[in-house]
């Protein structure tokens, strides 16, 4: 764990250095009062993408968290904290809905080839439809505010769970199934005592994908819904004021990424706990 943390810090530092390095080579001039170290520097080139508007300084983004985003308003970190909680609630709800639906479909399909063959093409097709096209319709149909957003998030979540659940439920060795048959075990017992435990590692793989996807789904779902309380709303808002404060959008992006990472790590934690007695380590 210690080594992993060190590696993570090194990667983050490298990213920051590449970011600022690009700005050193081709960004806007550095003024003494615009950076914490009072460095004056005139970069030899002017890359358009590395201007302060397109690629704000890392410390400016960091500082933006502490500043009020509108006059006399609360500091940005407070706004982003509540927005993150709001979006997280949508994402978790969507994740649970999508997870249950995905798991249920996997269980049904493992027991019925007919249903699998007849429904699977539509499920695959559903995933090729852009979520942005569906989101406004779901919002209008359901008229349910953040719950509609959770449904959109579930839409993005269930597919990997279905596929991996199905694969996992089919993973037991033929002999393990024969063993159950020799015990005259019911399909129900085979599902709970053999197929499901055997499928857990693959289900968790899907849940890790779905955890981050559900956050993306929730943010996208907020965009056409008129919901302004979440990260999607914040992104829209700071996007329209980009010229006057690009750091705020970047800070919001960082917050969004943070929500996804936290959710992911939560799932990894549960996975570790559930699979702690299995051979081979759980990989994050």
């Amino acid at each position, binding site marked *: 764990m210690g080594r992993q943390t060190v590696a993570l810090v090194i990667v983050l530092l490298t990213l920051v250095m590449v970011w600022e390095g690009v700005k050193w080579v081709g960004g806007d001039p550095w003024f003494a009062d615009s950076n914490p170290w009072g460095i004056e520097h005139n970069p030899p080139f002017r890359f358009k993408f590395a201007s302060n508007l397109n690629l704000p300084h890392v410390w400016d983004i960091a500082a933006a968290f502490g500043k009020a985003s509108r006059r006399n308003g609360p500091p940005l970190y407070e706004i982003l904290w509540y927005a993150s909680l709001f979006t997280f609630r949508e994402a978790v709800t969507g994740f649970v809905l999508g997870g249950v639906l995905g798991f249920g479909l996997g269980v049904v399909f493992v027991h019925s080839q007919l249903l699998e063959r007849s429904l699977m093409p539509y499920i695959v097709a559903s995933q090729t439809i852009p979520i942005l096209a569906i989101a406004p319709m779901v919002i209008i149909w359901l008229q349910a505010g953040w719950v509609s957003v959770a449904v959109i998030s579930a839409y993005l979540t269930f597919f990997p769970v279905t596929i991996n659940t199905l694969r996992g439920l089919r993973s037991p*060795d033929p*002999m393990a199934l*024969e*063993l159950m048959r*020799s*015990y*005259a075990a019911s399909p129900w017992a085979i599902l709970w*005592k053999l197929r499901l*435990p055997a499928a857990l590692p693959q289900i968790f793989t899907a849940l890790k994908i779905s955890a981050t996807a559900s956050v993306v789904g929730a943010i996208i779902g907020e965009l056409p819904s008129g919901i302004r309380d979440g990260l999607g709303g914040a992104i829209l808002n700071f996007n329209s004021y980009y010229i006057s404060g690009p750091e705020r959008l970047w800070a919001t992006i960082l917050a969004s990424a943070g929500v996804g990472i936290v959710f992911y790590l939560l799932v990894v934690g549960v996975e570790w706990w559930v699979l702690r007695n299995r051979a081979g380590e759980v990989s994050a």
Partner: protein
Amino acid sequence: MDEAIVAVKGVNKVFEGRGGQRTVALQDINLRIAPGEFVSIIGPSGCGKSTLLRVVGDLVEPTEGEVMVAGKSARAARLAQAYGIAFQAPVLYEWRTILKNIQLPMELRGFSKEEKESRAREMLALVELADFGGHYPWQLSGGMQQRAAIARALAMRPSLLLMDEPFGALDEMTRERMNLALQAIWQKTETTVIFITHSIAEAVFLSTRVVVMSARPGQIMEEIGIDLPLPRDERTHQLPRFFELLNEVRSSLRRAEGVHDGA
């Protein structure tokens, strides 16, 4: 009166392939096994010996013929858990401890907690794994895993034990130790055993009767009674009669393969 615990009468098994080609796995199999016998079935690969075992266990349905186990149809016997089975691989569930693995068949029958616990402990002691009940399968060696699988097969105190090359994947030394252990378990539990194997020495050492099969179609070629004294142990390997029987089974196997080659 029918004294046999296993009676296989006129069994044929034909597998239909995708392109409509038919593979005759078993042809006109007749086999009667008396209670307490240890019968090994030996033959070249693809002779249908595993299929025969699965027909007895009602895991594969015969195309024709009749199978009786413990006085019932093979199906009724399976539903009554009249037999225990062990496969080439231990097939222990990796998410269960050894003790919980052995409890699985009892769990499915709704045994009480105490009954499960005490009987699983008893079975563990029988296969000399008493200290390993709390371990997970991956923490045990291959031989220990296979012993746990045998304990699980015996957990319901079946009158019949079906074993499909259970020691095939083990190294020679472990295999010999497992043979000794199985021999002792068989004597102690007085279970009837049907044992599939590739190894002539294993078949002769363990069995009271060796059934030799030939391949394509799978047929019973010959049955050789093994009259070595019981109980058998390390010294059995040195008996002149052991070598005679070894040779007898070997030449029978050769004839079994010859039938196929000459055809």
